[in-house]
Each structure stands twice: as C-alpha cells, then as structure tokens.
C-alpha cells in the first residue's frame, strides 16, 4: 500500500514539475495552490473550472466577432482578449496568457488572418491545459484514495 502511494506521489511530483517546465503553468498557479487549505480543499479546482468556463465564453465571443462578413470589430475582439489575458494570468495559465499577448498585438494591427490563427491556437491551448490539469486532479484523487496525502511540490 505504501509503495503504491509513494509511486503515485512520485508520479504526481514529476507531472507537476513537467507542467511548469513545459511552460503550461507559472508561479501564479503556485500562489493559488498556496491559498488552498484543509478548509477549502477544492479552491484551485473551483477557480480553474471558472477559468475554463471563461475560456469557452470568450473564445466564442471572439469567434463571432471575427466571423463578420464585412467589417470586423477588432476592438471587440481585443476587449475579449484582454479579459482572457487577465483571467489566464490570474490562474497561472502561462501559455494561454502568452498567446493572449500576441493576440492583443494582432488585434491592434487589425491583422485578420493573424487573429484567426491565434484564436485557433488559443482554443487548442486552453483545451490542452484543461486535459493536463484534469490528469493532475485525477492523480491527486488516486493518491487520496490510496490513503496518501497529496505532496506539496517545490518548484525551483
């Protein structure tokens, strides 16, 4: 039993580290984790869930704004990008945030093709992150179910 837990914990540690190393997460995610305690065990999951809801909504808004035959309202697209940049920054979604920075410039330049491509990247990126974090939460669950505690992972 203990060996199993230890193995899961190691898997978990490595997984978290890889998420940081591959640039999916930054220190704001670490900050969020530090705000969670025994009294609020679902805080991080809750915030992330809201973030992904935001992604769906904002990406939808942007897709509609970019799909106008005729004039595209780039300031409208930009306003949505700004929102997404903000919330991705708040949860530590590093890659999504990075894409939003590029996206913002493309909106300012009124680069239609660039915006369309960037939006597709944003869509893929947030979904990828969502899947990765689901895997992370599943590992946490497995550890707990195996009778272990979820380790604090020290990001260097």
């Amino acid at each position, binding site marked *: 039993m203990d060996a199993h837990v230890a193995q899961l914990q190691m898997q978990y540690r490595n997984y978290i580290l890889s998420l940081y190393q591959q640039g999916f997460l930054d220190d704001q995610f670490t900050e969020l984790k530090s705000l969670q305690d025994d009294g609020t065990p679902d805080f991080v999951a809750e915030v992330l869930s809201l973030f992904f*809801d935001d992604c*769906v909504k904002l990406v939808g808004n942007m897709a509609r704004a970019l799909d106008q035959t005729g004039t595209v309202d780039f300031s409208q697209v930009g306003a949505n990008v700004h929102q997404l940049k903000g919330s991705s920054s708040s949860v530590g979604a590093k890659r999504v945030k990075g894409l939003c920075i590029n996206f913002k410039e493309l909106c300012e330049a009124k680069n239609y093709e660039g915006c369309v491509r960037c939006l597709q990247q944003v869509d893929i990126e947030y979904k990828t992150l969502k899947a990765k974090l689901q895997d992370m939460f599943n590992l946490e669950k497995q550890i707990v179910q195996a009778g272990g505690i979820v380790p604090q992972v020290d990001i260097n």
Partner: protein
Amino acid sequence: YSSMARDGGVSCLRSSETMRVGIGGMESPPLDLDEVHVLAVDDSLVDRIVIERLLRITSCKVTAVDSGWRALEFLGLDNEKASAELDRLKVDLIITDYCMPGMTGYELLKKIKESSSFRQVPVVIMSSENVLTRIDRCLEEGAEDFLLKPVKLADVKRLRSYLTRDVKLSNANKRKLPEDSVPVNTSLPPPPSPFTISPVSSDSSPPLTISPESSDSSPPLSPLEISSSPLSSPIDDEDDDVLTSSPESSSAPEESPARRQKMRSPLD
C-alpha cells in the same frame, strides 16, 4: 457544506447579486465592529474569487461586486439622497479593478472620493498593466495604493496597514481561516465533482471553425455575470506609457498621495 449563517456571514449584505453565491433574502446581521470589511470590485469572476479568497485568508469580511455601478449601489451612492442605512454600513477598504466596462476603477475612485460618507475609506486600484500615467492618475485622485495583477497574498497582507480602523491582527498571519470566518465556497451547492471535465474531444470539434453555428457551450449566465456585459467599451489606451522598470519604492506606506510604488517589492 454548512450554511453561511454560522458567524453572521458577510457583514453587509444587500442582495444576492452582490455575492457570487446566491444567498438571496438573507437579512443583514449586526456588524462585528472588530472585523474588517472590504468591498471588492472586479468584472472578472475568476479575479473576484481569487481576491475574495486572499482577503478572507487575511481575516477580512468581503463583499464582492462585478461593476462600479454595483459598488455605488452597495454604498448607497447611486442616488442623491443619503440613505439611512449608511449608519450601519461599515466599509474599511475598497479594492477595485481599473479596467472595467461601463465605469472604470478610476471613475469609481473619483465618485468615492467625492462622497462625504466614504471619502475617508482607502481605495486600492488593481490593474494588469503597469502603466505609469495610470498609476499617477489614480494616486493623485486619492487612491491609497496600486496593485499589479495577478494579486498575491503578500500584496493583500500589506493592505492591512492602510485600514482606518484599529483592528486586532492576531489572526492575520495565519493561513488557516479564523474559526468564525467563512471559507469562500461553503455556500456553493456541492458540485458532482470539484472539477467537471469532459474529454477534450467532446467540448467541441478541436479545429476551431469560425462560423455562426459554432456557438459557445457555456452555461446560462448567472445574474451576476449578466450584468457585466460583454465589453463594449474600449480598454484604456495608455499602453504607450508601459513602465519597463520599477519606480522608486519607499519602505513604509505613507499618507502622501503622491507616493508611487510598485506594490510587489522583492523585499516582501
């Protein structure tokens, strides 16, 4: 999760719209004068949840609203006549996002500083952009401080020193919440699982097709979200002045409105 009523909940409750969770119809309990009450204003739900958590960890009672208008409504400043309820309304700190549709944090700041009832309340501005002219403008208008987003616990802990009331901070440094304070999510109906995720492929077709048919699958907006209408006003246009290096920082917070400080000092 237990109900919020245990400790009297948030000290100043207007309507269920001001809180992320639908409490609806709960009467305002008498205020606990020893507890710090913060009004947080941010149009982003994610940011509201985070700031709420940060404030609760530092032993504050929090009322979170999604717009400047809601904030004014909450403070009773949305109409000319003074509300009799103001005697009971105790707000020790107002923390607001800068970029919001409709009324910006700067405009809200001005209205608060123009009011006789609330001009003494410290107002802190949060922004994702480190724009020097923006910071200056806010401080000149009377903002106590300017926080760069994403806001961290260290930033919020520093805010405690700006509070007008002399409050015991014995629990302020403990990460665990004081026993009579309520965790953020106790009044949420327990979700089926904390993080309901479906496999990526079922969210929508992975290659994004930009067409009117690809509607977003987000759930119906709660009243709170409906009011923060999609983003019709352009975001502030001061990006030319983005600051690339930190301004000089002082070691201790001071009264002077001209003080300008990047809040996340490496010394924290």
